C-alpha cells in the first residue's frame, strides 16, 4: 500500500537514517535522498546543535520520526512530559507519520534503553493497543508500530508474534512498520518460517518497511545494523512488497557506519525488488 492512512497518504520512496557521521556530507553536498528517518529522542532536547542541525536538514529534506522509547508495551502509563516534548518535535518536523516499537523497555519509570520483547498474550495486546490509541490521540498523527527482533520467548505467551502484532494493530487501528530484517532475525532465533509471519499479517496496514544487516553467531543472530542487507532479508523484503505493495522503505545502518554513498547505494538496492513487485502486479 504505497500511500495509505497509516503513513499520512505519503508515497515516500527509499530513505536512510540520519546519522552523525554523515551530517557534514549531507549539509555540504546536499545529495538527493527521498527522505531521512530521524531518531526522535536525539532531537527531543532543549537547544544547541542537534536542533540547529535538524532545522537545516528540514530546509532541504523530508523527515520521518522514528522513536525508540515510547515503549507501547510497557505497563506504565504514557509519560505526559515525554509526549509534550514529542509533540513539539512533531510540529517542528511535520512528520507525516510516526513510528515506534512493539515492545517494552521501562517499568516503574526505570529505563533499560532496550527494545524488550512482549509476552504475546491477549491482555498485553489490549493494554498495548490502548496506549497506542492514547499516544495517537495526543500527537494527532498516524502511528506505525514496528516489530522488534528478539532473543527470548516467554512461557506466558498465548499466540505467535505475528498473531500478537495483528491483534495489537487491529485493536489500535494503527499501521505497521514492517521490519523484515527483524522478522528474519527472530525467525532464526525462534525457529519459525519468516514467510509465515509476512503472509499472516494485515498487509493493508503496512505503512513503512525497514531493512538492515545482522550478524550471525554460533547459536543466535543479533540485529546489529552494522552490515549490508543480507540476501535472505532482501528476498523476504521482495515477498513482503509483493503482498503489501510498495511502501516507504528505510535502510537502518547504525554501527560501523560507512560513507554516505555506501549506505545510500545499499538502500537503493530496494529498487530492484520494487521493480520486481511492479512487474508482478501488472
Amino acid at each position, binding site marked *: 500500500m504505497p500511500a495509505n492512512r497509516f503513513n499520512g497518504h505519503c508515497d515516500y520512496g527509499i530513505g536512510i537514517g540520519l546519522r552523525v557521521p554523515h551530517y557534514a556530507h549531507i549539509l555540504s553536498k546536499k545529495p538527493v535522498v527521498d527522505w531521512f528517518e530521524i531518531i526522535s*529522542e536525539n532531537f*527531543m*532536547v*532543549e*537547544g*544547541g*546543535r*542537534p*536542533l*540547529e542541525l535538524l532545522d537545516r536538514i528540514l530546509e532541504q529534506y523530508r523527515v520521518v520520526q522514528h522513536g525508540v*522509547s515510547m515503549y507501547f508495551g*510497557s*505497563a*506504565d502509563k504514557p*509519560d505526559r512530559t*515525554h509526549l509534550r516534548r514529542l509533540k513539539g518535535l512533531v510540529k517542528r518536523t511535520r512528520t507525516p507519520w510516526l513510528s515506534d516499537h512493539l515492545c*517494552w523497555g*521501562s*517499568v*516503574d*519509570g*526505570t*529505563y*533499560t*534503553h*532496550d527494545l*524488550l520483547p512482549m*509476552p504475546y*498474550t*491477549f*491482555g*498485553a495486546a489490549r*493494554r498495548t493497543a490502548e496506549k497506542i490509541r492514547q499516544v495517537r490521540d495526543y500527537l494527532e498523527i498516524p502511528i506505525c508500530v514496528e516489530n522488534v527482533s528478539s*532473543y*527470548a*520467548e*516467554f*512461557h*506466558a505467551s498465548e499466540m505467535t508474534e505475528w498473531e500478537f502484532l495483528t491483534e495489537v494493530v487491529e485493536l489500535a487501528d494503527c499501521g505497521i512498520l514492517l521490519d523484515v530484517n527483524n522478522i528474519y532475525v527472530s525467525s532464526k*532465533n*525462534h*525457529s519459525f518460517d519468516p514467510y509465515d509471519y509476512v503472509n499472516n499479517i494485515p498487509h493493508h496496514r503496512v505503512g513503512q518497511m525497514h531493512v538492515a544487516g545482522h550478524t550471525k553467531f554460533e*547459536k*543466535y543472530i543479533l540485529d546489529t545494523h552494522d552490515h549490508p542487507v543480507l540476501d535472505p532479508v532482501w528476498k523476504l523484503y521482495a515477498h513482503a512488497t509483493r503482498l503489501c505493495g510498495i511502501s516507504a522503505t528505510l535502510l537502518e545502518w547504525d554501527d560501523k557506519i560507512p560513507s554516505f554513498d555506501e549506505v545510500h547505494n545499499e538502500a537503493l538496492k530496494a529498487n530492484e525488488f520494487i521493480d520486481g513487485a511492479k512487474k508482478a502486479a501488472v
Partner: protein
Amino acid sequence: MKRPPKHAPARIGSTEDLRLFQRMMAAAVTRPLDSEDRLQSTWIDGRPMEKVAAEFIKPNDRLSSFERLQLYSRMYWFRLFDAIRDDCPGLLAALGERAFGRLAQAYLARYPSRSFTLRNLSSRLVQFIGERPRLTAPRTALALEIARFEWAQTVAFDGESRPVVSAASLARTPPGRLRLGLQPYVTLLALRHPIDNYVISVKRRDAMRSEASNTPDSAGAVWKPARKVPLPRPSRTYVAVHRHNNRLFYKRLDPDAFRILEALSEGRTLSRAVAAAGPGVSPARVRSWFKAWMALGWFCARGNGPGRRAS
C-alpha cells in the same frame, strides 16, 4: 524500580500481571553482571538463576533460558557502560579502566536510568561519587571535579537557551534593582585543578588513537597502550562551560569575574554582584567582562530557581 515479585506471573491477563512480569524481567536484566560478565548464578532470594529464568523464559534447542536472559543482561550493561564511557572520557582516564568500571557498575546499580534518553545517564554521577568516596579513592576530589566538568559539557551541548537580555533593557533598569539570569546551558565551575586542560588533553589523545585505528595501514601495526595523560596538578581554576554558535567552549574566568557571575546566578542585583568582586576591581575591567558576556549571550531573564553553579 519496585521490588520484583517472587515469581513471574504464569498468566498475563491484566495490566497488573504485565507490570509484575516486566518488574521481574527488568530486575533480572539490570542486575549487575559477575566478574566474568555473566548473569549472576543466584537470584536475590538465593535460588539458582537457572531455575528463576526457566520459570518465565522458554529455552530453545541452542540456548537455555538462563543464556537467553543473559544476552539481554549483557546488552543492557555493555550499552550503558559504552554510554557512560562516552560521556566521561576524563574520568575514565583519571581513574583507569578497572576503577572506572567499578564506579560505573556501582553507580548504575544505585541510580539506574530514569530518563527516556541516555543523554541523562550521568546526571547523578557527581552526587554518587560524593556518596561513595571509596570507589574513587584516593582521587575522589579530582574525580568529583572531572565529573562536574563533564556533566557541564552535556548541559552546554544541548541545554535550554532562553531569550538573551538586550543591552537596551539592561540600560533601562537601575543596577540596584537589576537581576540577571545566566543561560541554563552555562555552568560556572570553581575548581582546584585545571580540569579544562586535562579534559582537552584526554580528548586529543583519544582522537589521535581513533584516527590511527582508522588508517588503512594500521591493521598490521603493533598495538601500543594509550599514552597516559598526566593528572592535573592542583591549581585554582575558574571556568565557564558554555556554548557559542552551538559549539562547546570552556572559558577561563578571572576569580573576580567568577564571583560576579556567581552572585548574579544566585539572584543578587547587579550592583551587589559587582560589589562581590571586591574593591580592587576597576570599573573598566568590569565593563570589559560584561561586554564579553553580553556578546556571548550569557544573560537572560531570571527564572524561578537559582542559576546553575556547580563549584
